[in-house]
């Protein structure tokens, strides 16, 4: 298989004695949809924060495409190809939908202050190409026609999709989706699943935190289960479904 796209070794962080993520070893192969499940407070979001550079671990390492990125800042990881969405929507609320997605292009555009002030030909062409690209992404997540609306005025489901479009604009190789289905009405779930599958078909590896089991089971290649910060199981959906520890810790309670 070669080197995995993402690898964590003994990844840990504790907050004042709480081991939010505790010695987690995992690997994600390129092209997979990899799900992380676990009860509330299990450390899933914290794990994302460690992978995307929002927290620095108290122990262990994060390796991306063979490079140790444990000490890199969040924006540097984005530039290396790790994109993410947030569990609690974090859009640029007072900016338009188009601008939200344009911000995602940031690290791939080159125009600097001089380019801005002089509005050089290169700057104009770059902006034009950027807008085209972003329009395509907004279409991809089903937001065409909403380009000029302010992000804060979009209904909840559309805000979630805008977060995905914005993250895709960074051209990630690895996309971290934190509970994309949370709060969505049932009729929007199938189109979300479709979007995630199309993202995978574009060659983007997806790590998904999700509570909705039907969503998880239908699109994941592998599933990792966290409980109290520890990894208690990992495998195919079928394996995880029948894992005794998982049933006790999590599924058993819910079903």
């Amino acid at each position, binding site marked *: 298989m070669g080197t995995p796209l993402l690898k964590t070794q003994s990844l840990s962080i504790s907050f004042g004695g709480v081991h939010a993520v505790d010695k987690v070893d995992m690997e994600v192969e390129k092209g997979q949809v990899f799900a992380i499940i676990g009860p509330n407070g299990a450390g899933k979001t914290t794990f994302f924060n460690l992978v995307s550079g929002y927290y620095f671990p108290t122990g262990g390492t994060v390796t991306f495409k063979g490079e140790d990125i444990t000490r890199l800042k969040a*924006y540097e990881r984005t530039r290396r190809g790790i994109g993410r969405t947030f569990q609690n929507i974090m859009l640029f609320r007072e900016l338009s939908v188009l*601008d939200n997605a344009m*911000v995602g292009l*940031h690290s791939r555009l080159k125009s600097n*202050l001089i380019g*801005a002030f002089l509005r050089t030909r290169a700057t104009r062409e770059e902006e034009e190409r950027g807008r085209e690209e972003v329009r395509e992404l907004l279409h991809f997540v089903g937001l065409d026609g909403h380009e000029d609306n302010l992000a804060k005025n979009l209904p909840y489901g559309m805000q979630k999709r805008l977060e995905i479009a914005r993250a895709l604009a960074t051209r990630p190789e690895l996309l971290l989706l934190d509970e994309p289905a949370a709060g969505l009405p049932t009729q929007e779930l199938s189109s979300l699943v479709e979007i995630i599958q199309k993202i995978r078909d574009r060659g983007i590896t997806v790590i998904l935190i999700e509570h909705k089991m039907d969503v998880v089971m239908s699109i994941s290649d592998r599933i990792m289960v966290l409980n109290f910060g520890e990894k208690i199981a990992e495998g195919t959906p079928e394996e995880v479904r029948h894992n005794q520890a998982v049933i006790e810790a999590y599924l058993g309670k819910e079903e």
Partner: protein
Amino acid sequence: MRSLYSKLKIPVMLVVLYGLPFVTQDPYVMHLANMAMIYSILALSLNVLTGFTGQFSVGHAAFYGIGAYTSGLITVKLGWPIWAGFIAAGVIAGLAGLLLGIPTLRLRGLYLAVATLGFGEIVYQILVNWVSLTNGPKGLTGVPSPTIGPWRLDMYHSYYYLSATALIVVVFLVYRLYYSRVGRAMLAIRENELAAEAMGINSTYYKITAFTISSFFAGIAGALYAHEIMFVSPESFVNAESVSILCMMVVGGVGSIPGSIVGAIALTIIPEYLRAVGDWRLVLYGAVIVLMVTYAPQGLGGWITALDHWLAGTGHYRSGRAKKDKVAAEV
């Protein structure tokens, strides 16, 4: 009718702006007009910091003062040409902004406000006490007026062409910044710094950049001031002046470019009419600001944008930025 509005908007504004000295050359009026231009630049410069990146400053008069003294000293003591004084004013004030921006990066909200207030006080004290350089409280006299070709801009009404042009250039540059990749990064930081980082934005870099650009423009405003009244003294750069600039920006609407200009013009002219009521002026002033912030947090800029969209027939008010493509094509 409506497309006519869009076509004529900018030419009409330019005619009104440059036409003023043809209507009156009264020194009192024209001095006030110059101050309105200078304060507009100051409010706009603060807007780059606060309106774009969301960093508050209550010490902006420091950069204004640094610019005024830089150009004043360079032209008076070194005899350099005035245009060199203007550039140096921007550069030195910009460097001061850079130096203040770095240590205050971690500060937010009230803490940043207090730090910038402290900086304003430090600069003021230096201007007062470093007598061998600044002449101290007596101020610096004999600051020269500029000449452009055969014209000496030594009257308020002739100088006005320079200050109006300076404002136009600054407005132009600030608009271009706003609608650029750099401006977008700044707005993203203001809206949500964590999310901005997830977009690959180095927020540290852009916050310092905003501080530097903002103080650069404030420094230019300082030079513009020094050569207008041909005299600089520390009293023009007290902390109350920083508060005035802040008020102009807030009344105009944080983040609104036309708002900053209208706010600055209004708060330059209105106090003149309130002289009759003496110190009650300050109370009124404060009351208006409290009312604006409470009931119209978008400031005058919100109304201007709404009116503009209505006249241009671009539907209901959404956001100045939403019509990006259109404006970008114009700029």
